[in-house]
């Protein structure tokens, strides 16, 4: 069994209110490492056996139509060990 991960992030030019809220909260708690924070979604998809190229292409397709909203988001698909 393998795990395919789809990461979905808002496009850089799109306002990310959640990321802004986290950026603002960190220094209030004494954490000063962040120049900026963006918050996105992570999908962990379990598939039977090793993912085939065909399967990965399907996942790409699903990411584009369901998991991400291409109007405002970008996504990446990868296999995680």
């Amino acid at each position, binding site marked *: 069994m393998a795990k395919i991960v789809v990461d979905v992030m808002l496009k*850089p*030019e799109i*306002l990310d209110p959640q990321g802004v809220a986290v950026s603002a909260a960190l220094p209030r708690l004494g954490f000063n490492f962040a120049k900026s924070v963006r918050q996105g979604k992570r999908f962990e998809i379990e598939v039977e056996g090793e993912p085939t190229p065909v399967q990965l292409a399907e996942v790409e397709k699903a990411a584009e139509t369901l998991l991400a909203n291409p*109007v*405002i988001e970008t996504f990446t698909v990868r296999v995680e060990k």
Partner: protein
Amino acid sequence: MALDTVSIAQNNPDTSQPFAELGLKPDEYARIKEILGRRPTSSELAMYSVMWSEHCSYKSSKVHLKQFGEKAVKTDALLVGIGENAGVVDVGQGYAVTFKIESHNHPSFVEPYQGAATGVGGIVRDILTMGARPIAVMDPLRFGPADAADTRRVLPGIIAGVGGYGNCLGLPNIGGEVVFDETYIGNPLVNALCVGVMKHSDIKLAKAAGAGNLVVLYGAKTGGDGIGGVSVLASETFESSGPAKRPAVQVGDPFVEKVLIECSLEIFAEDLVVGIQDLGGAGLSCATSELASGGSGGMKVELDRVPLRDATLSPEEILMSESQERMCAIVEPKNIARFLEICKKWDVTVTVIGEVTDGERLEITWHGDLIVDVPPRTVAHDGPVYNRPLAKPEYVDRVNAETVSVPRPKTADEIKATVLKLAATPNLADKSWVTSQYDRYVQGNTIQSQPDDSGMVRIDEKTHLGVAVATDANANWSYLNPYEGAKLALAEAARNIATAGAKPLAVTNCLNFGSPEDPGVMWQFAESVRGLADGCLEMGLPVTGGNVSFYNQTGAVAILPTPVIGVLGVIDDVRTRTPMSFDRAGLDLYLLGETADDIAGSEWAYMHGQRGGSAPVADLQREMRLIELLVAGRTSKIFTAAHDLSQGGLSASLTEMVLRYHVGADIKVENVEIALISETPGRVIVAIEPVVKEQLLALAKKHEIVITRLGTTGGQDLVINGAIIPLEELRKAHSETFPKLFG
């Protein structure tokens, strides 16, 4: 990256400019040159192009809309009329109420959630800008057929967006509409209404008076939202170093808006602003030019001071950006320290970006270079005005001549089947799948919300003064006869206020139409405006504001003409309102108003694919008598319940009444094949204790309203002429539709 300044424009008069790509016609471009005595800088071109767009300048609609002022009755209740961000009416006890509808149709098609969310955000800022605390929202919506793939894509997102934004602002959602029709495929309509309340003395206007006063921008930072079009300019004029494609989508942050509201109200309470304007369509271009022209005209702005979310934005883009949750205030220097302090308390970003001058020009600089130098009136108010050709479309006479042929329920089985079908059809089905996603309780003053005829909120907890608002549009009737359609929508909205016993006071509207470049659409529009203006004159109600949305069109197919009319009413004591339904047995039911065979444009006809015939003719004198009767009946405590008849006729209204508190009724009507499904306007069902019968009959007589006894309340069935419909079965039919469609 080269900056186009006023002096460059003067020295290089022949530089070619992408005015056409920005939507300007050659003669409009020529006029800008004439106004300025030179070619515009790219920043000026950007400003003029957005401010002279249909959306901001009302260039196709202005010549018609002016009837709302010309035909208006003079009323002392109107404190601020058309022309400001929203009109304001006096509701007594020192209170003033402001309300307005706006459309966010196209953005909601592109990105349903954000489009709808920012639609709510925008109208709320318009209301806030008047100095009012926003107290409620409503959302009249239109979609393609309920089972269409496009509807399944846009509807859930739009509902979630309206709720997501409104809920987070703490504004109760007290009403709206959900209507389906093929013509809205690809053109969903998202209209949002907001109501706000203030004391008379707190009214604020969009004007920048007093040389030396400061121009203050506060709220969210400016990003590249909603400037898809303007990036044409940036990329044509410069080698743009920013992201090549700017998003046309605006993303809202309701939390920032909530904080902005509280911060602004605290600023207003201390009387720290001279004038104020929200940033909506056309962003800073609109706010600066409108504020300046609302005052003496002079204003200097240092554009490079605007706090940016995206450092790569060009000055043109900053001027155009439609980033949400921003406000622009004019503040006297002596008050600025306190203003900044309140912003700090609420953690709101605030920057002084300029000052009011005693000149007559709006001057904008970018790191010291003059990039805009214009008379602000020419940007904000002197846009082009078109008297577009209009022609009665060919379809009108043709469809008016058609006879409607639909099944007519006569037997008990047919009656039962008809009632169940109407109860379940998406346009009439229970909307709680939608409304349960909206907070209707927040603020603790909601007296009525969905599924009541109107939304009602208390505005004073001691005196129990309240306001009621309803919105209506009957696009089927408007399609058959736009003049009557607008009047009928007005009458229906007013009636929906009056069933609760509130007195109609003022009107707002959102006119949703196809392309104004189509003479047929333009005729529909002109007829609708004429109908609404005549109707308001006859009913003595002022139009306090509104919004026009054109180009709701897919290819050659325009949406049905959809003038959404909002009516605001006042009620001196919300505790005495007449509820929409009865909660006990043993009451008598009466129908107020006469029933004719009005099937054309009805829901029953629509369900049978019929869109012909002639719309009813509005009888506003009768509507006004009915309204008076309803208000009088409330004050003399005659009614136990009152409910309006509209789409779906008697069948739909009875369904809604018996299901409201799960108490049945036994009804007998003559001519059931007409009575059950006809949509004759001007009718209301009332429930009374049998002992007040004579009072009711006297009241009806006094107001010359035909009255017919329908039957009595009680039991676990709705019985119509002997046809027995168990409430459980009716409820199932009524409530299953939405969850099944949208799960």
